[in-house]
């Protein structure tokens, strides 16, 4: 199982702050595509992905047990 954390407008769109997906393993790119298809999150083109609190690249692999976060463009400061 992989946990996916949602923030900001993605959290509001999904109506929750965490999703659980059953999958053996997949790439970041695959995860983004799956999120776009299965949940009504809109385009994730400009959304970054963090795996276990580190920014990840499209080709990085996500393993069961990982905590993933979808990071829309940040606006702190």
């Amino acid at each position: 199982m992989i946990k996916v954390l949602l923030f900001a407008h993605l959290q509001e769109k999904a109506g929750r702050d965490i999703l659980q997906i059953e999958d053996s393993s997949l790439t970041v790119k695959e995860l983004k595509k799956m999120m776009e298809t299965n949940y009504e999150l809109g385009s994730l083109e400009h959304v970054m992905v963090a795996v276990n609190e580190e920014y990840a690249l499209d080709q990085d692999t996500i393993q069961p047990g990982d905590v993933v976060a979808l990071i829309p463009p940040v606006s702190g400061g």
Partner: protein
Amino acid sequence: MNESLFEIVKDPISIEKITNKVIRNEAGAITTFVGTVREFTYGKRTISLEYQAYEKMAVKMLEQIGKEINDKWNGAKVAISHRIGKLEISEIAVVIAVSTPHRKDAYEANEYAIERIKQIVPIWKKEVWEDGESWIGDQLEKTYYPEGKPIKGV
């Protein structure tokens, strides 16, 4: 001294407290940046703001910014506190304090810190106006990450 140099907080931030974290005998120059909630942005009136963070990762990224500054400016000490939750106009959202032996470094390193916060720290701002509200993304207007993640600072 067990206090944390990099933190996400829910209560008002004391400028004095954050600045005091970096005052040292060997550093004669301290710069503090204070970011407050502005009433007008491009002519639009803000009523209040709400900040949300991926807290654990945000603290990690603030620590990373501290490390980057230490690599770039010798002998710098950095403390950053960012507040989340609902903030009113004029309230403090972020305080960055940097001490260095030399003055110029304190200004440069401090400005570097705020630029990096706006690039890599997972914090989001929701603006509430008189006629609606919206999550604000992309303050730097650089949504395109060619590497698929923020550019490395070092």
